[in-house]
């Protein structure tokens, strides 16, 4: 294998990894913050994907504007759901949370099937995103490169927000020790609503950006739920950089394995996640929780 094909494989994996990162990062933070098992996160990503596709195909919005619209719409919807459905179950058992969010996933899947139909949605990329870009040493799909750049930019923005702002400090404090943060006067419930909406919005952006790579149909949440959860679990709860690296790792691995073992590539991902989680239940990049 020569260098340029190696790089092109790495880039392909990176692009998938970035989508995984953008979708999963919100899940990681909300799970770390409240310990809430939100299995409906993939459904939010799917809703975002549909919103983006719909805005582009029916209203003719440009791609970035459609993404922004998806972000806002899903963030708003998730905020309502959070207040109505999630909030009463913060102190409930894990089982109740699993039930609620699986139920929500089923309901959203069915609602989308009823409203839009069961078929796969096609994403028509704008002119400037389709085609190839010359990197000097190889030609590569423009869209994948854009996704990678967008993912890295988002990572940087989130990292800055997390490490350099007061709200970020509050979130970090609450993830590390919720009760202590609460006694110091941090309103964890409000913080949670905020991060929940932000995380769901990001999932929507991920769903929109990734629709072209992962495909988009009503079964999306169930198909990719395991992937999102693996990324979160491997990355460690509430660790943005952990999720970033875990997502890239899994994206590249998945890409490479699917090329070499088209029939059973995902088998190795599951096996790897199994071994990793057994060796380090707190995740590859997570700290042992207090």
């Amino acid at each position, binding site marked *: 294998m020569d260098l340029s094909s190696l790089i092109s494989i790495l880039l392909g994996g990176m692009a998938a990894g970035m989508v995984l990162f953008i979708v999963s990062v919100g899940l990681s933070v909300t799970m770390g913050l409240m310990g809430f098992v939100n299995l409906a996160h993939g459904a939010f990503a799917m809703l975002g994907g549909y919103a983006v596709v719909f805005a582009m195909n029916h209203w003719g919005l440009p791609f970035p504007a459609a993404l922004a619209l998806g972000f806002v719409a899903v963030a708003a919807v998730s905020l309502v759901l959070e207040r109505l459905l999630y909030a009463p179950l913060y102190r409930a058992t894990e089982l109740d949370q*699993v039930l609620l969010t699986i139920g929500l996933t089923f309901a959203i899947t069915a609602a989308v099937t009823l409203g839009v139909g069961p078929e796969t949605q096609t994403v028509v990329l704008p002119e400037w995103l389709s085609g190839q870009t010359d990197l000097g040493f190889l030609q590569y799909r423009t869209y994948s490169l854009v996704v990678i750049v967008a993912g890295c930019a988002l990572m940087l923005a989130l990292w800055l927000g997390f490490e350099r702002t007061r709200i970020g400090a509050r979130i970090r404090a609450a993830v590390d020790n919720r009760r202590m943060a609460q006694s110091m006067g941090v309103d964890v419930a409000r913080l949670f609503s905020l991060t929940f909406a932000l995380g769901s919005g990001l999932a929507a952006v991920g769903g929109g950006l990734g629709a072209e790579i992962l495909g988009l149909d009503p079964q999306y949440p169930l198909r990719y739920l395991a992937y999102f959860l693996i990324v979160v679990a491997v990355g460690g709860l509430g660790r943005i950089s952990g999720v970033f690296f875990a997502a890239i790792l899994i994206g590249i691995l998945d890409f490479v394995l699917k090329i070499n073992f088209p029939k059973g590539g995902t088998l190795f991902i599951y096996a790897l996640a*199994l071994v990793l989680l057994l060796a380090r239940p707190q995740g590859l990049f997570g700290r042992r929780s207090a």
Partner: protein
Amino acid sequence: MSAAAELARRHRWRWWEALPWLAALGYFFAFPNYLAFGTQVLVTILFALSLDLVLGYAGIVTLGHAAFFGAGAYTVGMMALHLGWNEPLSGLAAAALVAGATGLASGLVLLRTQGLALLMLTLCTMALLEQAANMGAAWTGGFDGMPGLSFGRILGLFGFDVLYYRSQYLYALALLFACFLIVRTLVYSSFGQSLTGIRENLLRMHAVGAPVRTRQVIAYTVSAALAGVAGALFAQANGYVNLAVLGLDRSAGVMIVLILGGYGRLYGAFVGAIAYMALEHVLATAYPTAWQLGVGLTLVAVALFARNGLIGIVDALRRLAGRAAGSPR
């Protein structure tokens, strides 16, 4: 009545416990044309009952219970197809062994974790098996599964009834009863009592020196073996096995059945399976998508308002009625 006397009496059979079995026999004579459906209900009850042991009694939240159902189904399927071994009862025993061994092996490592990691690991185990079944097409039939399996006579005496499902129904009913006896005995034993203790207060059970992990692993293994029997029954009654026996859909489905009926109580699996399957039978064929929407919304409502399922609602009503009757004096 003192608490000790109550505890000592609670394993005794009550008169109404005969009713479900009488009803099942009555169904056999009343609806001879719907015995295929009846068999499906019995298999689902058994599967939900096995989940109740881990989820309801031991308090282990798992998303991967279908792994054992699938292990059982694939075991009898592959034995019949590749080894020509199609005697049903010994096939069930093999399925229970394979599923139980899978449960033991995965339980030994998985149950060291808890919370999100455990949830993920159960999901990963199931996904792993699903992928393995998909990959090993030479043995498992891959994506298409194994259609058109045929099974021999039960104990060499009763052949499977292709048209009316009579023998399948009675066979499933007898097995369900046997498995139910096992679960009932386990649950009311001191072992079952300590499982409940682990569910209710893990820390305290550790503190009093109970062998928490050993008990969890045993419960997980027994439950896996029972789920394997359910899966094997499914394969034998239907004559096919495919990847759907191993999916997240099935795991979530059986969880819904159990939760709907009420978990941590022996008869929840019965009520849940009958209610769910009857509704599904009527609605799902006509309006499959609306049915899924309804299931989702019901789950949301159950999680928020009715955590003890249908039986819990009946219990609450009975308490309410009792209070109303007892209050005016």
